[in-house]
């Protein structure tokens, strides 16, 4: 089957790409759009390294055929609030609290954490663990990831008040 044109708004910029409709959103983001922050750890929905927002909904980009995302707004780790010259509370917390080691799970972890904090700005440890259960990390043992999210929530609260 030939390629089709699919339009996606990624991190605020509209992209029209000519791709196979069944191509994985993950590959399209990494190769066509050129944003390699979204990672592949498994290609089967288990690890969460490919987590992105599609229209604000936390999604594994490896499981989305690009045609199903046509016309949507996508946010990746590069476009996450706080991924700027002056880092935001979430990013800062992950660096300072030790939430990132090798860093390969980190983009997905940050997107999942952002999703959690949007729904629940003051999560308990158990809620954080549940909210991040789809994001595997082999380096940290999760303790400092949980602490990083707690820390980020605290920083965000301070920023609001």
């Amino acid at each position, binding site marked *: 089957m030939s390629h089709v044109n699919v339009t996606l708004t990624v991190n605020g910029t509209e992209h029209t790409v000519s791709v196979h409709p069944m191509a994985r959103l993950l590959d399209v983001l990494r190769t066509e759009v050129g944003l390699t922050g979204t990672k592949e750890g498994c290609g089967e929905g288990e690890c969460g390294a490919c987590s992105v927002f599609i229209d604000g909904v936390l999604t594994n980009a490896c499981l989305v055929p690009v045609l199903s995302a046509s016309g949507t707004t996508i946010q990746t780790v590069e476009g996450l609030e706080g991924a700027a010259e002056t880092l935001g509370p979430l990013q800062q917390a992950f660096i300072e609290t030790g939430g990132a080691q*090798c860093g390969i799970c980190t983009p997905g972890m940050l997107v999942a954490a952002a999703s959690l904090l949007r729904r629940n700005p003051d999560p308990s440890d158990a809620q954080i663990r549940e909210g991040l*259960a789809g994001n595997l990390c082999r380096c940290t043992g999760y303790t400092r990831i949980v602490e990083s999210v707690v820390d980020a929530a605290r920083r965000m609260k301070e920023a609001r008040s």
Partner: protein
Amino acid sequence: MPDGWVGRSVPRREGRDKVTGAAKYVDDLHVEGMLHGATVRSTIPRGKIVAIHYEGDLPWDEIVVATAADVPGANEVKLIQTDQPLLADGVVNHVEEPIVLLAHADREVVEKARRHVRIEYAPLPSVHSIDDALAADTVVWGTDNVFTHYTAGQGNVDAVWADAPHELSGEYTTGAQEQMYIEAQGMIAEYDPDAGVTVRGSLQCPYYIQTALCPLFGLPPDKVRIVQMATGGGFGGKEEYPSIIAGHAALLAYKSGKPVKIVYDRIEDVTATTKRHPSRTKIRSAFDDTGKLLALDIDFVIDGGAYITLSPVVLSRGTIHAAGPYRCDNVRVDSRAVATSSPPHGAFRGFGAPQSIFALERHMDRIADYLGLDPVQVRRRNLLQQGQTSSVGQTIDEPVDLDKLVDRALADADWVAKRKAFDEHNASTTGPIRKGIGLSVFYHGSGFTGAGEVHLASKAVVEATAEGRLRVLAASTEIGQGTNTIFSQIVGDAAHVPIDRIDVVQPDTAHVPNSGPTVASRTCMVVGNLLAQATADVVGQLQGAGHLPATWDAEQFTAACRAWYADHDALVGRANYQPPAGVHWDEKNFRGDAYSAYAWACYVAAVTVDTRTAEIRVDDFVAIQEIGKTVNPILAGGQIEGGVAQAIGWAVYEDVVWKDGRVANPQMTNYIIPTAVDTPPIRVAFLEPFAPQPVAKGIGELPMDGPAPAVLNAVAHATGVDPRGVPLMPETLMDLLTTQETAQ
């Protein structure tokens, strides 16, 4: 505040790139004109290759094909020995052995082509267990399937049995374990007739790869350049296997003249690359009424897979750690690494020690059970003290106080109260829930075993620029454990400069000296020390030239560099490894100073077992260790927590299912590693150093050793069954519970 970086939780230096998605891992790199490579592998465990057919409706004329015949040099992956070919030539010795390489510009075409290469075999008999390997009815390696055989120990165990008050024996097993770093392995290679081979990728040990690639291509080291990219976890899995991927990518680049990227997907990574060596340990012990050990006779066997790779050194570490941090006058450790028809097992955090320590620490609990004593008491009766010798005859020079270590762990874990409460609950409950608490005490040697560091003769360099910046040059890789940050802290302290003036240079064999591999928990202790010396060399040169006073600050350092460059064009500090004085290791008899330092630990796990389902949940985990000087508490804590989680996985979740020598569960959906919900809060503390002048001991591997026995001891406490192997899957535990129920 230039002084005192060491000891502070300086944030990870490459943190910004990692939290913004900017960090570049190998699969993030696209090289113009690049081809994608794929590997065709054996589908049978052992046999002769009869024919290779290239089938299907594919543009075979566009596809680059390489086989053993294309290797320009010797078809051997040089490591300890050279028994492993880069590509199977005529015969395969394990499932998933690489036979044919393919490359094409279109990743999908090459993937499809991979599935259309049909290989005909004449099968040969194969070996799939330690017992079958030892029986040697089928010989797959050498004359008897034994790669390596060591005997270690002291005293005379055989003289003890006759008069021993008590004797207890047991057999313990541990399964293979997949490293499951989240970034699968990958390399990009380029070939240029003048410049030679350049490989970039996900790796732990650049110089291992260079050593392996030189003979494959018949090239000198200056024509083989290896560059590490951001690496998404290693845990030992990216120690030796990357040489093979690098060789494959380089061979395709050599043949095609184009850059070639090979990145494994998860299934290929799990089925084809190395795992932790499965093991079987038999322990026969003698002890008195108080639990004092009189003799330990340990028969330790590890399954090395089809080629020898690193098995001898894995075996050596497992052998030395087999008798634990206990004083026992009569010890014999007889150990073997054997060949089977599975893909070679390899380096994995702990490197043989977790296997033998698991056996011993389960056995210590069984001794306590047998005597009706508290497991803590039995351990305390035997803990090594300063001035005593370990089972390989190493005198413990440090003022160790292992009782204090145990005290702290028990206090943090609330051992006494929990042990009692759980006993009462388990005795009185009619419900399905059982609770238990268990511990382990252990040590882990830092750096290479025995004379390993002497053979390595590592080098490190620190350069100062005219602006007073310091460039750190070492081959030690950042794989998440914090190398960049720790090196900056050490060098910053040695030069009295802020760490933002320090640049840790990306490991690249064209620029960095060989500071040895990033393994064996040696980076901080050995290489960190070299960097401190190299920095001292810079300082010494500046002082020798009269530019720097005896005490100085950062601005004076910068001024001194500026002054130096007025009449020099470089300022290079060097350090070469010097063995510490008075350290002797007798490799042949396995006696002497096995390691220059040991980290000591006591871990406690509390578990819940649901007897309806035999599910085990680790509710709480306390990890107390003495690691000498702690360079960076947050990074060190992160190492311990990550290791504990990985070891909990090994203990109760991670079951490699083998089917005729092939991993039958190579996906994250069926090889189960713990999620955030399965992992308990891990409570880590570092004891005040034992020594007045502490060194920074290795910590990367330590946390892998203790959790499995602590968790299984807790399960035994909870349920009263006697589990002997990891992983302890609910299926096995349910059988034990059912047998127990029937017996009652």
